[in-house]
């Protein structure tokens, strides 16, 4: 039970934080089509957050709603991937981060459609449609940017090199994952690596980008042991109204 709650927070916090990051682009994207597409991705991710944290609240059984989990926990209690916490950088950096996440997200959600938890499999099925669309889009853009100009190639390659060790966190299996895997709720993260690798490698090849070879995994986000400094700033902004007006309803 606590493992299941914890694991749900890992999902919901990651989509929340990443959705927040993406939403920071609203009105500031380099082309109108990206303004629309990024808002759409953010919207989907916040939708997933509602479902995952909603379920987390139910599983916890203390009557906390998705909103309470989202807006009333401090950084220490968050379980978001470090990758999601990374600031946006330029649009190439944002799309690279998205691509690395989307490939993992799709592999994960696909596996979760077979979850022993009906609730999990239902949510996963809904989310998978959206995530697949995100992945199509980000894969396509990585190919176009990687195989675009020298500058776009250089920028995306640099983003990839920077983000790689953060992406590796997605495939680290710990005791929470073991417990949830035991219960048939979710796959061990390490088992998602092969599918991820094959999709990512194929896209990078077409994009003429070099797959980084640093296997080191920067960890601490998903297990909550050591987040990035960015998370606190993000939450200060995100949670302001709920913190400043705890008695209000909106």
């Amino acid at each position: 039970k606590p493992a299941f709650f914890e694991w749900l927070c890992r999902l919901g916090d990651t989509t929340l934080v990443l959705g927040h990051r993406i939403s920071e682009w609203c009105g500031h994207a380099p082309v109108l089509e990206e303004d629309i597409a990024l808002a759409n991705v953010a919207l989907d991710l916040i939708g997933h957050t509602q479902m995952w944290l909603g379920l987390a609240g139910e599983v916890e059984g203390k009557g906390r709603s998705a909103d309470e989990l989202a807006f009333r926990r401090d950084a220490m209690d968050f379980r978001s991937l470090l990758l999601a916490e990374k600031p946006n950088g330029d649009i190439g950096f944002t799309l690279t981060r998205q691509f690395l996440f989307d490939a993992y997200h799709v592999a994960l959600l696909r596996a979760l459609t077979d979850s022993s938890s009906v609730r999990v499999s239902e949510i996963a099925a809904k989310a998978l449609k959206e995530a697949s669309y995100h992945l199509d889009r980000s894969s396509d853009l990585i190919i176009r940017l990687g195989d675009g100009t020298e500058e776009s190639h250089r920028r995306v390659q640099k983003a990839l090199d920077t983000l790689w060790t953060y992406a590796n966190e997605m495939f680290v299996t710990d005791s929470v994952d073991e417990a949830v895997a035991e219960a048939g709720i979710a796959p061990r993260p390490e088992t998602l690596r092969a599918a991820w690798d094959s999709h990512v490698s194929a896209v990078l090849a077409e994009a003429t980008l070099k797959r980084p070879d640093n296997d080191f995994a920067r960890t601490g986000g998903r297990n909550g042991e050591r987040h990035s400094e960015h998370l606190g700033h993000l939450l200060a902004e995100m949670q302001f109204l709920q913190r400043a007006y705890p008695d209000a309803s909106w």
Partner: protein
Amino acid sequence: EELEAAFQARIDNNERIEPKDWMPDHYRKTLIRMMGQHAHSEIVGQLPEGNWITRAPTLERKQILLAKVQDEAGHGLYLYSAAETLGVSRDDLTEQLLSGKMKYSSIFNYPTLTWADIGAVGWLVDGAAIMNQVPLQRTSYGPYSRAMIRICKEESFHQRQGFDIMRKMATGTDEQRAMAQDALNRFWYPSLMMFGPSDKDSVHSDQSMKWRIKINTNDELRQKFVDQTVPQAEFLGLSVPDDELAWNEEKGGYDFSQPDWSEFFQVIKGNGPCNEERIEARRKAWDEGAWFRDALNAHADKQAQRRQESTLQAAE
């Protein structure tokens, strides 16, 4: 001259003008200006609302706001496309926005300072926008008219959402009520300004009405807006910041104070609260995105070349 007469006859006959039809040069220019300004307003209009996406108080409110801002970008897209049928490209229009040659609606030079402002923008600003736009569904230029039909449908949805935020705030805690009243105070007169100066001071109006690019006068629409909005404010228990406001039985509408038109002209001149910041944000997005747009073009060129090469090879 003959062409012009025939053109005017079509308009008087309620026919739609389509891109391939002959049209007077001035008609084309006026439409480009209007549609461009309208498109720019949708784009710049993302900014004041976008300012609260990261601070939306609940997940649901965040989703609603994201969807709304996304719709606005979508409206921008329709309108730029409609303008392109008149032979002006989106990039051209964007350059004109950034250089200050083209304007956007002045209302977006006002800041959103509390969450209630997001309600007020939906309720008042979208409300005023709809008032302006509903008649434009029947405007004489076909692509513009069709874009407006799609846009109006979504805008009225946005307005209801804005009103819903206001209702929550106005019936919430003391602090929320104070924010709601403050938002109304700050957005009331700027919303009245959205209809433009009084008819007697308004340029370009006559010809535009003859061409059915403009359907109602500024003052007509402003009156209609006040008449619709005052009872809503009463319903919310908020007071409209106008001591002169009073029901006039005779005209069947409210008497109300005019906004401070000197402020209006200052804002247009660039001295509004957020003018620089809005344009700066858009310029930054445009300039810093140049490499991105270049890359997509370069890739498209490469792909085209590759297709051509493989066709040639297949033909050999």
